[in-house]
């Protein structure tokens, strides 16, 4: 009934692109949230003990090395769940993505002991029990970098949400613009319907139906392409980042829970619903101004 094919095609492309970006952004935010949460939880009760010169003779026990003495002491401390000693190869594995082989050859690598605690114990408690025995042992509960990382993750997530909301605002602004153009281009038909008793509400319904036919398929197609893109990217990122952030990338299906998936899938539907409200309000306001 209302003529505006060119504007509608333009609107469809904008919505398709914007919903694509919105779904990608939203998924990125949710994955980032889920991954960081999971990762931080995994290191929450972990302290790393760094033992320099591990093979040297222990200062407190003639029959043992420095490393062995530390491990013995750790085994009798209450509240320790698991002790994992990194051998030289594993330690090198952690560093060889960040440092060149020449530098690695020159470094006198310390031994690393990862201690998993049953409950959070502060660094001082362990330092008090181990520190006096063996000099040159450093204990790190990762709190310093965890705090900074959490701050960084929060910034990235908030930025993601801002981008997501901005994209939706751009979509809704495009719809308002298209409605304004449609009203201007169809003023005669709108006037006729008004004279027949159609009123603003009936005219708004016509616009809603027409916009729904334009943005509905566009939003659904945009979301579908975004999800396909994310699955393809996921495989690629898993390969790319597995060396840098071991265990941080798993399949999308595992990474996101039911509610997060529901959120992503409902994005185009919620957007369509918001658009229809926007169309109705815009038409009523614009026609109200004309009368």
């Amino acid at each position, binding site marked *: *009934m209302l003529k505006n094919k060119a504007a509608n095609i333009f609107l469809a492309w904008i919505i398709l692109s914007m919903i694509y970006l919105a779904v990608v952004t939203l998924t990125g935010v949710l994955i980032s949230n889920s991954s960081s949460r999971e990762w931080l939880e995994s290191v929450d009760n972990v302290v790393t003990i760094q033992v320099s010169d591990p093979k040297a003779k222990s200062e407190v026990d003639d029959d043992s090395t420095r490393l062995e003495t530390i491990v013995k002491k750790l085994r009798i401390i209450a509240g320790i769940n698991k002790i994992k000693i990194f051998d030289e190869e594993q330690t090198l594995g952690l560093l060889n993505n960040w440092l060149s082989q020449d530098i690695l050859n020159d470094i006198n690598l310390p031994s690393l002991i990862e201690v998993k605690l049953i409950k959070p114990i502060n660094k001082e408690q362990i330092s008090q029990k181990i520190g006096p025995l063996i000099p040159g042992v450093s204990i790190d509960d990762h709190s310093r970098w965890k705090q900074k990382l959490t701050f960084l993750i929060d910034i990235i997530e908030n930025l993601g949400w801002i981008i997501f909301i901005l994209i939706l605002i751009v979509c809704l602004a495009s719809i308002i613009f298209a409605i304004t153009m449609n009203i201007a281009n169809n003023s005669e*038909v709108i006037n006729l*319907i008004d*004279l027949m008793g*159609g009123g603003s509400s009936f005219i708004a319904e016509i616009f809603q139906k027409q916009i729904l036919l334009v943005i509905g398929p566009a939003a659904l197609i945009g979301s579908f392409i975004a999800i396909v893109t994310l699955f393809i990217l996921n495989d690629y990122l898993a390969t790319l980042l597995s060396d840098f952030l071991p265990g941080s990338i798993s399949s999308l299906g595992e990474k996101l829970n039911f509610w997060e998936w529901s959120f992503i899938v409902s994005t185009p539907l919620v957007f369509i619903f918001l658009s229809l409200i926007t169309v109705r309000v815009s038409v009523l306001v614009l026609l109200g101004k004309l009368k």
Partner: protein
Amino acid sequence: MIRFQEVDVCYTPDKPILSKINLKIDPDSFHFLTGTSGAGKSSLLKMMYLALKPSTGHIEMFGRDTAKLKMFEVSNIRKRIGIVFQDFRLIQNLSIRENVALPLRIYGAKAKIIQRHVPELLDWVGLGDHLDSFPVSLSGGEQQRVAIARAVIARPSLLLADEPTGNVDDKIAERLMYLFEELYRAGTSIVVATHNKDLISEFDYPVFHITEGNLILQG
């Protein structure tokens, strides 16, 4: 049904196009509205379908003071009025069927009712074979009949026709008038604005004549 009291219409200050109009249209009545070109026939009709507010005076439509109507009440009153425009005002990108169905859609009629009534009415105006044609493919007379079908499909209480025979030959004009008579007999009040004196003389109905801004009831 319609009552005008001391109604003035001025498009420019101190130069009323209609002055001190007093008019009463009862239910089940048929009136002609005549006057020279530019006399104010269309303005009078516009006030009747609430597209023009009087500069002064009062208008009552279906027992309601039009000055006090809210927007949704204006729409409700308009739903009771069928309008045949001088220039037809058919929607060009809708088929004849869809054009005629529009008032029923505004009424919120069910699809079944629309599907049954529209072909019936188009048959009645002699356009049963043009259901899926578009206005551009019809002659002036045919478009006029579509406009009439659209105006009456929702069974309005009042039908306002602005120069409905202006674009058609005498034979079709006469046929259109018989269509209006049928509607009148079916209980619709009719106001036909025309300057076709032959047509008026052929049908014995009262005439509102506008001359120099004043309204005179003849016959």
